[in-house]
């Protein structure tokens, strides 16, 4: 590798000049404080690569993943969406992507005003009063919601309504352990008690079924608990806003509307709540304000700042509402632009298109002899498929035919999941993939 490195502009001559000014002999002498016994250990790293070699290596690696053209019917928390083409261009503008948390609002209005747009979009979608600028992902956001519910209700247990995404349940458990909360998993709201700070319900649930949140909100409120709805923002294009159904906190995953699944991350946790909980919210919040002094001869202009920071770790430290600092701002920007590009009609049309395409696919599958699509209620984009062979075999038979099956949920307790795979079809699943699936399922059926 040549010196200087492309990422480190200073040359040997630069360094000599700087060292002289500092009065140091060489670079190493700047590290004199480091304990000598441990200084400059031997470290075994892969060799450095020039840019062309780096790109070649990683293009090769990317090619070791399944080809993007391979039919894939996995959903279960990550969905292939039609993301408007303008999103990636705008998000990649370096004024957005290479900035950090907007500590200096005068030169960060881009991040701040889009943060305010994001909060506005999240409030509209969820039907809630207030939202923050986003947390890590849906699961950690849900865990934060449980902690917040516990803080506000002063109760030490939370209740998860099954079927909920196992990843979400797992993260709630992780966070609850630290906070000393008990986590109960229940299959009906009736199991809720006045020990519970909240009831957590996923919409649609883990097996894809649309949930009627209203009775759940009532049940929760009856025992003095909050309803935390974990809602898919895409499905909210057609489903009733959780806020209108009585939810107190709404979380969700914004990744898929903002871009590609990227093996799960970067993700984006949505977090919205009713006004009473505002000062207990985790995360950054953007507020609208005005210039202190009119700057341009005329009236004071409108600007945006991080606000209500007294909740946050860098001020409140151990009494903060959360430890979160860096979150997922750039993904939130992509989410905002994508949702606004779709607009009110586009979002609804997209959700309904997804609904129609998924139901059409399900119907075609159910029509193949040997296959069943057990329904648990109305659904949007995910459905169970039971085939003529055990679920695991069906999955591997499909894989051999170049198709990635839906998730194997045959070990779930719900009777409909018995021996079933959870398939997902969205507005972005190519027709040709669905055709290939139908054909493959039929041929597997024929061979039985």
């Amino acid at each position: 590798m040549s010196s200087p490195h492309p990422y480190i502009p200073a040359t040997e001559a630069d360094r000599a000049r700087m060292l002289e000014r500092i009065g140091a002999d060489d670079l190493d002498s700047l590290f004199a404080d480091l304990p000598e016994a441990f200084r400059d250990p031997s470290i075994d790293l892969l060799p450095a690569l020039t840019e062309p070699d780096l790109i070649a290596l990683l293009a090769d690696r990317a090619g070791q993943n399944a080809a993007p053209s391979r039919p894939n019917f996995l959903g279960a928390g990550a969905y292939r969406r039609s993301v408007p083409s303008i999103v990636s261009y705008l998000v990649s503008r370096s004024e957005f992507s290479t900035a950090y948390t907007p500590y200096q609002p005068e030169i960060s209005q881009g991040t701040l005003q889009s943060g305010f747009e994001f909060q506005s979009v999240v409030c509209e979608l969820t039907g809630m009063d207030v939202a923050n600028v986003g947390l890590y992902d849906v699961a950690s956001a849900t865990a934060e919601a449980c902690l917040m519910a516990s803080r506000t209700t002063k109760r030490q247990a939370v209740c998860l309504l099954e079927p909920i995404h196992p990843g979400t349940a797992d993260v709630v458990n992780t966070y609850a352990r630290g906070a000393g909360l008990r986590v109960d998993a229940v299959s009906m709201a009736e199991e809720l008690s006045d020990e519970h700070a909240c009831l957590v319900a996923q919409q649609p649930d883990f097996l894809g079924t649309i949930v009627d949140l209203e009775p759940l909100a009532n049940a929760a409120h009856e025992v003095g608990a909050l309803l935390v709805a974990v809602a898919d923002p895409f499905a909210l294009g057609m489903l009733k806003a959780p806020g209108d159904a009585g939810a107190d906190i709404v979380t969700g995953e914004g990744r898929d509307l903002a871009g590609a699944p990227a093996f799960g991350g970067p993700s984006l946790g949505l977090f919205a709540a009713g006004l009473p909980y505002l000062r207990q919210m985790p995360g950054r919040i953007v507020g609208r304000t005005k210039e202190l002094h009119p700057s341009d001869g005329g009236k004071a202009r409108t600007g945006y700042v991080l606000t209500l920071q007294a909740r946050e770790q860098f001020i409140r430290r151990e009494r903060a509402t959360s430890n979160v600092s860096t979150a997922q701002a750039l993904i939130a920007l992509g989410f905002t632009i994508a949702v606004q590009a779709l607009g009110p009609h586009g979002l609804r049309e997209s959700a309904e298109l997804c609904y129609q395409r998924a139901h059409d696919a399900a119907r075609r599958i159910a029509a193949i002899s040997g296959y069943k699509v057990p329904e648990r209620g109305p659904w949007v984009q995910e459905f169970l498929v039971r085939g003529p062979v055990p679920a695991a075999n069906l999955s591997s038979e499909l894989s051999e035919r170049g198709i990635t099956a839906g998730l194997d949920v045959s070990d779930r307790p719900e009777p409909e999941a018995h021996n079933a795979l959870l398939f997902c079809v969205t507005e972005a699943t190519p027709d040709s993939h669905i055709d290939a699936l139908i054909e493959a399922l039929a041929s597997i059926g024929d061979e039985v």
Partner: protein
Amino acid sequence: MTAPGPRSEDLGARLSFDRGEPGRRAVDVPVWNGQKTPLPDAHLLRDSVTLPEMGQGELVRYYTALSTRNYGIDSGTYPLGSCTMKFNPKVNDLIAFLPGFADAHPQSPEHEAQGTLRTLLELRQGLAEITGLPHVSLAPAAGAQGELAGVLMITAALEDRGELEARRRILVPDSAHGTNPATAAMAGYSVTHLPTAEDGSLDRATIEQELDESVAAVMVTVPNTLGLWENGIEQVAELIHDAGAYLYADGANLNAIMGRVRYGDLGFDVVHLNLHKSFSTPHGGGGPGAGPVCCTEELAPYLPTPILEEGDDGLVRLAAPERSIGRLQQFHGNVGVLLRAYAYMRALGLDGLRSVSGQAVLNANYLRVLLHGHYDLPYDRPVLHEVVFSGSRQKREHDVRTYDIAKRLIDYGFHPPTVYFPLIVEEALMIEPTETEPPEAIEALAEALIAIAEESASDPDTLHGAPWTAPIGRLDETTAARRPVLSWRGPRQDR
């Protein structure tokens, strides 16, 4: 001769929601021509949703305009102390967006994701080498989540040792980043603050005094937030271990010591790294980040899920450690950020990473000597990656606060440094140039700060009113917090 232009638009006053017209749209959605399935029952559905209705060109212009009101690393020097704002190589983005990586489904069977998994495995191995701590989980989404993972791992270990009930305290230096105490509290511990000694290191006496069987862990930032090495940290480590507690490293400042000293060798039990800082991935206006945790053999069973394992069959797999604290996210962390960090590690190699720390430290010291005498330097000794000045003199003598100095720096074309942190330095100006700034940029920054020091004597009002040339003037943060307006429509009750 100058004449005023017409007053330009008050861009902040008109959100996207206030733009466009009903019926406009920025994208079309395909029409479904197949058999129609009736929609679910109406009480499950919404009537409508309120969103902006704009044409595609309008929407692009709006967000392009917003972007021009932001300052990123590509705009200029961004010496935000503790945040390590270094140049973000575009090749990292190019790699993360390769369709094979970007389109990978998180639930993919392992054999369909070997490209991603092998790359993450190699990143893990590299981080283990760099930290000297052999076991790693890449799951945490950012530094603070890495901290939570580390502390919960300690909790789990204490539980297995049967000491969890007893050990309810975590010691945290007063110079620590806010996430440290916040994390400790979130994990259920009470926090004891450790004072910083005269030389900017931990006060040994207090530590010795505080260390007892009620202490679960000590969280130390190395190098610390003053940009200084924690003198004698390796002895402190022994003390801590002798007391049965764990030593946690906040490794957010790894940039200063990459390739030169390792957390594991010094006696740390667990460290989190901030790859979005040290490894050059874009900060994104506040994320996404990645905050892997690396730990000793002893703590390895408790690492968050997933970790990476290579099987005898040559396949790399995601796995749950035996007694894992569990998951931190629904899936596997901010994989796109991790791929970028891998690309950075490979672009540099060991020599390169050593050049990074070498140059970062040289740059900070260069700035230190250039500014010496112009601002107070509370801890006046050679620094590592950053240097913390104080504006106390300017405050005392000219009623100019660090806040004013920062705002004025905007007029000189720079992003201001971190201010009022660490809390133990009055009127702190925490400056971290990073290795990617050329000497000319550091000199220009120093010149600007010196000019501002002079202005604070000669023309304090210019500083009090700054910035004058930014897209917007000083904002009323007090009213923002007192009467919060947090969304376009405001809360439902007000509608």
